[in-house]
């Protein structure tokens, strides 16, 4: 489904991502792990067009999407979330999801201005779509709350709802569990499983090792922008290099 070929990004001599070859198939959950500064978020930025690669290609469903703009890649079906709580803070929960549904809404400028009957129909469809997303993610009872007043855990969930509203085929989650309490972590992992159940492939960055190992089919380990290991969670638990680069340092840091 998604393939990166020798994906490389240099920032003024610093190699953030080095010849990365990722491969994600439909319906998979793949994790990217690695210490801070390993190039994980940069990889997301490259795949979704927020950064242009120095070298290499990105293929999605057989098409070369390298160099396309973020909104165009979103239209192709790759939707990302951001670290921290990137949501529309001044909107209500419902407005967040409605605004993010524009790829489903497909409402043209003049259509909206003239208030045509097609517009009313599309507008209603969008509302239904948003409602379904919120029910799925479990935030429908909070739909009229202003987003910035939500708890951190709910804001993170809303971030996922916003991404889902854009109808992804491939969802990139950037640290979806960061800052969550154990109850919220369990619930979010369940949600990610259900997202896969809808036929959406998931690529996620996460530091919570236990959680990420419990949910991923495969994992890729990055260090200094270079892939140092890949495989199933069980395989990686045995891998010396991984333990040293990542699992080990986390213990030391703690």
């Amino acid at each position, binding site marked *: 489904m998604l393939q990166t070929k020798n994906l490389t990004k240099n920032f003024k001599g610093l190699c953030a991502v080095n010849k990365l070859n990722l491969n994600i198939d439909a319906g998979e959950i793949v994790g990217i792990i690695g210490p801070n500064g390993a190039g994980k978020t940069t990889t997301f930025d490259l795949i979704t067009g927020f950064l242009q690669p120095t070298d290499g290609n990105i293929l999605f469903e057989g098409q070369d999407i390298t160099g396309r703009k973020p909104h165009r890649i979103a239209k192709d079906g790759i939707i990302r979330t951001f670290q921290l709580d990137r949501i529309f803070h001044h909107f209500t929960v419902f407005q967040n999801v409605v605004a993010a549904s524009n790829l489903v*809404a497909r409402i043209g400028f003049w259509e909206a201005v003239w208030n045509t009957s097609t517009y009313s129909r599309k507008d209603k469809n969008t509302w239904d779509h948003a409602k379904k997303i919120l029910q799925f993610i479990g935030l429908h009872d909070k739909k009229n709350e202003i987003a910035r007043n939500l708890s951190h855990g709910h804001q993170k969930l809303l971030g996922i709802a916003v991404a889902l509203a854009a109808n992804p085929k491939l969802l990139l989650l950037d640290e979806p569990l960061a800052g969550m309490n154990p109850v919220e972590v369990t619930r979010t992992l369940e949600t990610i499983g259900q997202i896969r159940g809808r036929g959406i492939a998931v690529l996620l960055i996460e530091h919570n090792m236990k959680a990420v190992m419990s949910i991923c089919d495969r994992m890729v380990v990055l260090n200094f922008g270079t892939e140092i290991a890949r495989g199933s969670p069980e395989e990686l638990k045995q891998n010396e290099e991984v333990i040293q680069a990542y699992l080990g340092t986390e213990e030391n840091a703690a």
Partner: protein
Amino acid sequence: MKLGKNLSLSLLLIFLFVVPLFIKSEYHLHILILCAINIILASSLRAISTVGQLSLGHAGFMSIGAYTSGILVMKLGLSPYVGLLLGGVAAMVLAAVIAYPITRVRTVYFAMLTLFLGEVIRLVITEGRDITGGTSGLLNIHRLEPISILGFHINFTTRLPNYYFVLIFMLVVLLFLYRVDRSYIGMTFKAIAQDESLSASTGINVARLKAVMFCIGCLIAGLTGAFYAHYVSVITPDSFGLFTSIYILIYVVVGGANRFAGAIVGAFILTLIPEMFRTLKEYQPFIFAAVLFLVVFLLPRGIVDLPVQIKIMVRKT
């Protein structure tokens, strides 16, 4: 609730159409026309700002419209109505040309670029003496041509027909901008204003929508400038200086940038206040500053927030 709103809106409309019949003074009518012009300008500036862009060059686009129409009508003998349209189109074309670089920068940078753009436009007009008349400007610009509607012969030499002309123009502009604001597109605009990257990540074409709104705002400014030129029949480069742009911005801020009615209320009140203190002409900037200070400190969300604040106060007591 909705019925009450519609009723009061209808009454307001009727009032706007009937009120000039009771105003005998040409001067008072002139003030009302200025109010309408400022309401249009402030609302179009607010429309640009809903996408998160703060333009300080609005008067520049107004002058493009005014000069284009004035020159075309005076030098080429076009009908003022054609000139009016072409004036608006000229402002929009300029906006479209510079939209590509200008909408790619944000907030303060956008404000700076538009500020200098407005000044560049003013300087070019000042220096192009052969065509624009330089600092002395264009004099004796033709009035709008007389028209006949339903047997009524309307001659634009007096204030009254000009009032109706600008009133209808204002209502059309406001209706259009209101639809944009309240529709799904308006919501997309507000999403862009809050977080451009997040908007782009959900598939919103941020750069294009920002450019579209900028062009529409400038089109409206150009049309208004062109009308102004034919209405007052004298324009100079200083009619549309940096201060004009800043005043338009103040109308929006004082009225309340977050609400559609804000720009309207702000422009209306702040056009009337200086006229009430007309005898203190030199002190007008002080009065402006005083009003601005009061509003910023007491009503940070603008004058339109006053009813809400009063409700909160009443509930407390």
